[in-house]
């Protein structure tokens, strides 16, 4: 199968390309990005005039709910939604049921994704067995089975275990994903500790719950020299700490979820359970700090932190609801809104969604380089649309962004040289 995408504005930050060119695809791969390619006889032409053509997005954190919680979503339903959102690579955190701490589970997830055929799914391996924070997982075997990194979910209380897990991960050249949260501070909290939590009587999660964990783990990273990635930062102070560590030469990267760049604690308003997320929505100042972090490249990736839920999971008093947003389909729109609102250059915005996260994972994705697998997203930058329950493809309709109007929409997504999504 040979495809030519012609006439589009190619934006490929990793290769420094931003110009009108054609892309030539044969079988799974990109074989040329050029004005023309002699002797190329396309089976399929995709007209991309007035469109942006960018690498398929790489999402560092998306719950697909399979195995274990198929009533919420499945790998098929969520990778299909990812395709509609221009995402062609997703990392699945290890808290599936069973947990990703054996090669069998890692392989099962990849096989299911393979069968669905919409996107690559990379399982993140549990740092410790059963995510219990006690025994190390079989990291070498998990790496062999396709896990690009190891991760905790929730706090790992025992600092000695954290140290040893980092040392063992480094032995096997695995990046450690850290979701920074202190084991004790704000343990039963469900909202940022501050004005809003005080007014609404919600147990709070202080900023220090994040910064204490970042500080501890930075000390360990300095000791060990392991490559580490702080995922889903929510506070200005943590961004500053990570910036300082990067300045000092520590091998540290970071990401933020797209919703943290657009919502604050004020959005909880009268207990809107769609705004119940972990880490919690914080203050305006934190939001500005995160936006600056993205701009300054302290934060190299924007992720969705996709967490689809069935309707019932959000139908309860705020703290009793399950945290998380169904977020695949707002990742690109919210990031592009940041480009418009915050003067983040377009190529940098796209970098945070493509080659930025790919480099953190050390994988061959997020670029339009010749010879690479053809994972491509085509966007109509002038298409104005509104998010509503009917156009969300994810099985989870839980999002506080219902009714928001966005500019720019994915019109085509190619995965491994095949069209996996076309806008009706």
């Amino acid at each position, binding site marked *: 199968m040979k495809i030519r995408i012609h006439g589009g504005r190619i934006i490929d930050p990793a290769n420094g390309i931003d110009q009108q060119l054609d892309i030539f695809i044969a079988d799974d791969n990109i074989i040329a990005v050029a004005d023309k390619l002699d002797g190329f006889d396309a089976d399929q032409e995709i007209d991309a005039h007035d469109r942006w053509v960018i690498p398929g997005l790489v999402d560092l954190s998306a719950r697909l709910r399979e195995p274990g919680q198929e009533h919420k979503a499945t790998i098929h339903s969520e990778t299909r939604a990812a395709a509609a959102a221009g995402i062609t690579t997703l990392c699945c955190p290890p808290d599936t049921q069973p947990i990703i701490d054996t090669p069998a589970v890692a392989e099962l997830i990849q096989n299911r994704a393979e069968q669905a055929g919409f996107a690559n799914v990379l399982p993140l391996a549990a740092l410790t067995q059963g995510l219990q924070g006690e025994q190390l997982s079989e990291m070498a075997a998990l790496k062999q089975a396709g896990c690009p990194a190891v991760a905790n979910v929730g706090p790992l209380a025992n600092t000695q275990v954290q140290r040893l897990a980092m040392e063992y991960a480094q032995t096997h050249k695995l990046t450690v994903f850290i979701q920074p949260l202190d084991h004790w501070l704000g343990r039963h909290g469900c909202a940022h*500790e*501050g*004005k809003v*939590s*005080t*007014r*609404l*009587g*919600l*147990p*709070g999660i*202080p900023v220090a719950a994040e910064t204490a964990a970042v500080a501890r783990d930075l000390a360990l990273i300095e000791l060990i020299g392991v490559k580490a990635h702080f995922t889903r930062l929510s506070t200005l102070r943590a961004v500053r700490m990570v910036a300082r560590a990067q300045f000092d030469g520590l091998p540290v990267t970071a990401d933020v979820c797209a919703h943290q760049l657009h919502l604050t604690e004020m959005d909880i308003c*009268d*207990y809107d359970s769609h705004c119940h997320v972990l880490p919690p929505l914080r203050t305006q100042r934190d939001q500005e700090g995160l936006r600056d972090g993205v701009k300054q490249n302290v934060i190299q990736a924007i992720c969705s932190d996709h967490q689809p839920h069935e309707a*019932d*999971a*959000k*139908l*309860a*008093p*705020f*703290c*009793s*609801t399950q945290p998380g947003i169904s977020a695949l389909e707002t990742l690109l729109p919210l990031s592009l809104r940041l480009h418009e609102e915050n003067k983040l250059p377009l190529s940098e915005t796209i970098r945070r969604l493509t080659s930025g996260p790919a480099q953190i994972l050390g994988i061959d994705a997020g670029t339009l380089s010749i010879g690479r697998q053809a994972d491509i997203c085509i966007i109509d930058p002038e298409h104005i649309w509104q998010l509503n329950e009917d156009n969300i493809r994810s099985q989870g309709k839980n999002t506080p962004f219902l009714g928001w109007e966005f500019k720019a929409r994915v019109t085509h997504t190619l995965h491994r040289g095949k069209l996996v999504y076309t806008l009706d």
Partner: protein
Amino acid sequence: MNLQVDENGRLRHFLSIDGLNRDILTDILDTAESFAGVTEQSIKKVPLLRGKTIVNLFFEPSTRTRTTFELAAKRLSADVLNINVNASATTKGETLLDTLRNLEAMHTDMFVVRHNDSGAAHFIAAHSQPHISVINAGDGRHAHPTQAMLDMFTIRRHKPDFKELSVAIVGDILHSRVARSQILALNALGAGEIRVVAPRTLIPAEIDSLGVQVHHHLASGIRDADVIIMLRLQNERMQGALLPSAHEYFQLYGLTEERLQVAKTDAIIMHPGPINRGVEMDSQVADGARSVILQQVSYGIAVRMAVMTMAMSNAQQAGDQPS
């Protein structure tokens, strides 16, 4: 959008003091004043809510609050159903909603709800049929608006001019829905000065944003105060490392006649009950001339009658309208 008032600014539900203006609060107090007369007569019933069904839906144990709500409903001639739900059996949201749907199916007109989750009353109001009114009888740490209003009623009977008042609230502010509602009500009614008095461990973050001054010492906190409200201290606070011991708490924050010297001579002492004698205050103060604690309990019935009547009549109109 405020769930608890209709488009004409009238009370539909009573969920929180937050968002209610001085007019509505004054209206509640005035209506309660008219019912206070009823409760003092020998025949204590009025037929205002005859034929209405009120469900006391309590997910947390309570004797005092539930009883006064029950009495208030009966004096308004409503039919009352008390349902105590073991909170541990309903940790899932579906169950709460299911409970609600079942009770709605019995043609309920009003829910009086107590729940250990902040926002539970809002949740129930948002998911009930339009003709149903919801009264919050305490949700988590968030609000206990009828308690706050009966406290305002008690204060007004003794000290009618709120703007002259200096009010001190002493104790576990962090976990207290009563304190939050009192602070909002006092501010809405224009109280001159509100202070909260407790160690740092019992003061919630950025409490000053609610318009209060924070004091950590009892002497400065109650100096020249007109009203002193003591909060109940739960025993489990000692286990949570919030306080070293009940003994030390009483040494520092317990109200005694001697410590009361710094307050105004005509200061009134309040407590939402039940009192831990020897922890929040000694018996001499609790039973003393300046204590209005028992008045609070009896005024509670009139205030709850007022809120029930007001919310029910406005909700009924909303339910009657086609849209």
